[in-house]
């Protein structure tokens, strides 16, 4: 294969801005933002949100673009080389390994989420999750069976469907990366971003023309009513900072990689600001106008809080299809909604994977095909544990370290290198070279002091919660309750009224289950046929246990556990009508998954990819000729 001698370049400024905007715009814009705003002070959330955008969102955007263009001038598209140019220390390139290991681990699980969106777009088009005369589709069970989390197989058997969509998604990503920066990534952005805007507009029109239990305006009222009392809460500021952090794709090394393909004297200041502005447009305007107003129309004003606090994936993959399938043209709008999420994710995943391709191309002088092939091997290999062990929390663990803590660490390092090691004076000159806007001087102060301090506080806040307060570094088994055969039932298991007398017992029962599973080091199951009476009675007809819980067959104890948890089987006359209790015999399954090996596998993947890239960096630098800094051939 021919060696790569010349670096690629963007075809046009519009293409670059669309690609960078595509990098920043992701699923979080449409799903995470409204949930965060609604749960953290409504309209008042915008005060810390805008402050965070100004004190580290936009400044860090400029930092990333500056580091990237500076590195690109010396032929580096990934952080090891970029840091090496700015920080004359042998350690610099190894610190830059974070800019390869973090995006690589991130893209392993993010592509899986992207594949869910593609899968759901297909299921929407074919009407697979629509209720029919023969089949009631419980969207929660549907989603959990698709990911092989639920013990039932009413809608999906195993991970076959998920594997198919994952394979397609992976192939699409690799194909775009193989086509290169201008003909692949830029072309994708030129198609996907206008489509994304069009789909957003169509969804907004759809949501605001629906008539249901509530109105879209009630949703807007819920989302934007300011609650100033929350502004004194540190957690709200941390949430705003986190949202700005995730939404702008800071600390991935991907913006830096995109910036490395910008010509030496081309503007980066306005390009960086435009990237942030476009991203904010999709997040604040479209993000606020789709999911929450849609939930308000369908479920009514009283239920919005439940939907808003149900989490990013629940809003996107369960609540939205529930809303859309209740109205005409559900196939069309369901497909549009999930394609919208898919495109948002697709333009981000190629961006986050590109630094690894660039690393092989720039530091090993590999041809594009070979660089993509190496990435494909690593990516394909890493995909299996993410999919197979999703139910054991492997994806969440990767997300915590690579997609949360790691990003803050990398961003903090970048801020320090920019302002303190390379020096603010030189960095500022680099940022302003070719600039189409004049950046106000007060940002110098912000970049030197405020941004690093703000990033350190965010990092401390994220580490404090799980690591110090919750001490959740030790993996604990995951316990959950399920209906054995959701497709046969019109109702669902709901946690309604915990019996105060049994509440403590329920907690100790669950604790003992976790202990048994931890001791046996294997999964455990309890299956029980439960008679739920309309008079709130609850009788266990049959019970058996398996795996680590084989001996757990005490019917009275299990009944008291269910009472203590407030578990009821409830039906609804319509999907958005209130639940009501009915007489019913259902098989309930308690699953207790032993997560320890999988959580440590996730940590092993993180550490292993760090070591692998560090070794590769060592090899690449050793191959350089010491006098020229070039790779000897």
């Amino acid at each position, binding site marked *: 294969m021919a060696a790569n001698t010349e670096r690629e370049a963007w075809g046009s400024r519009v293409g670059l801005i669309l690609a960078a905007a595509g990098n920043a715009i992701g699923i979080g814009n449409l799903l995470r933002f409204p949930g965060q705003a609604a749960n953290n002070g409504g309209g008042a959330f915008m005060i810390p949100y805008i402050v965070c955008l100004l004190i580290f969102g936009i400044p860090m955007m400029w930092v990333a673009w500056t580091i990237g263009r500076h590195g690109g001038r010396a032929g580096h598209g990934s952080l090891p080389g970029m840091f090496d140019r700015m920080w004359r220390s042998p350690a610099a390139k190894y610190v830059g390994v974070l800019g390869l290991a973090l995006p690589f681990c991130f893209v392993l699980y993010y592509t899986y989420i992207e594949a869910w969106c593609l899968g759901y777009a297909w299921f929407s088009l074919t009407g697979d999750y629509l209720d029919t005369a023969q089949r009631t589709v419980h969207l929660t069970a549907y989603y959990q069976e698709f990911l092989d989390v639920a013990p039932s197989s009413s809608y999906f058997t195993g991970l076959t469907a998920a594997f198919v969509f994952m394979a397609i998604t992976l192939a699409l990503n690799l194909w775009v990366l193989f086509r290169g920066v201008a003909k692949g990534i830029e072309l994708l952005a030129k198609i996907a971003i206008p489509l994304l805007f069009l789909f957003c507009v169509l969804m907004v029109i759809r949501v605001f023309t629906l008539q249901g239990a509530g109105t879209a305006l009630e949703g807007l009222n819920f989302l934007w009513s*300011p609650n100033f009392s929350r502004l004194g809460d540190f957690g709200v500021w941390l949430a705003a900072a986190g949202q700005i952090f995730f939404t702008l794709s800071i600390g991935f090394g991907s913006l830096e990689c995109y910036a490395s393909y910008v010509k030496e004297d081309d503007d980066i200041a306005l390009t960086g600001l435009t990237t942030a502005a476009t991203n904010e447009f999709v997040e604040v305007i479209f993000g606020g106008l789709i999911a929450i107003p849609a939930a308000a129309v369908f479920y009514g004003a009283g239920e919005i809080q439940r939907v808003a606090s149900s989490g990013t994936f629940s809003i996107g993959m369960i609540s939205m299809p529930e809303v859309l399938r209740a109205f005409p043209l559900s196939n069309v709008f369901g497909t549009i909604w999930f394609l919208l999420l898919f495109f948002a994710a697709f333009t981000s995943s190629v961006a986050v994977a590109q630094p690894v391709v660039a690393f092989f191309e720039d530091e090993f002088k590999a041809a594009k095909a070979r660089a993509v092939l190496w990435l494909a091997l690593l990516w394909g290999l890493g995909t299996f544990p993410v999919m197979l062990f999703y139910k054991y929390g492997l994806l969440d663990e990767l997300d915590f370290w690579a997609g949360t803590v790691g990003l803050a660490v990398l961003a903090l390092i970048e801020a320090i290198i920019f302002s303190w090691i390379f020096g603010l004076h030189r960095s500022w000159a680099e940022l302003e070279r070719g600039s189409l806007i004049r950046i106000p001087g007060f940002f110098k102060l912000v970049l030197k002091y405020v941004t690093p301090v703000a990033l350190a506080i965010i990092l401390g806040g994220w580490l404090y919660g799980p690591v110090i307060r919750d001490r959740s570094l030790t993996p604990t088994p995951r316990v959950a309750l399920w209906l054995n055969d959701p497709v046969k039932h019109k109702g669902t298991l709901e946690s309604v009224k915990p019996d105060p007398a049994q509440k403590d017992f329920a907690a100790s029962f669950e604790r003992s289950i976790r202990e048994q599973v931890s001791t046996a080091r294997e999964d455990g199951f309890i299956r029980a046929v439960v008679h739920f009476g309309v008079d709130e009675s609850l009788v266990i007809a049959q019970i058996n246990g398996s795996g680590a819980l084989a001996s757990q067959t005490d019917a009275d104890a299990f009944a008291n556990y269910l009472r203590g948890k407030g578990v009821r089987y409830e039906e609804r006359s319509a999907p958005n009508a209130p639940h009501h209790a009915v007489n019913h015999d259902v098989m309930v399954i308690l699953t207790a998954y032993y997560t320890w090996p999988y959580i440590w596998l996730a940590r092993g993947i993180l550490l292993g990819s760090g070591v692998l890239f560090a070794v590769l960096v060592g090899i690449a630098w050793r191959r350089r000729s010491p006098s020229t800094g070039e790779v000897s051939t």
Partner: protein
Amino acid sequence: MSTGAWLFMSLSFLLIIFLNLFCLGRLLQNRKNDKR
């Protein structure tokens, strides 16, 4: 919708739209200069 909700929504939207128009304006101005 309450007045507070309207106010915060409108101000947020206006701010974001202003930021986008500012960027768009600068980009178009530069494009025009490049053509000259």
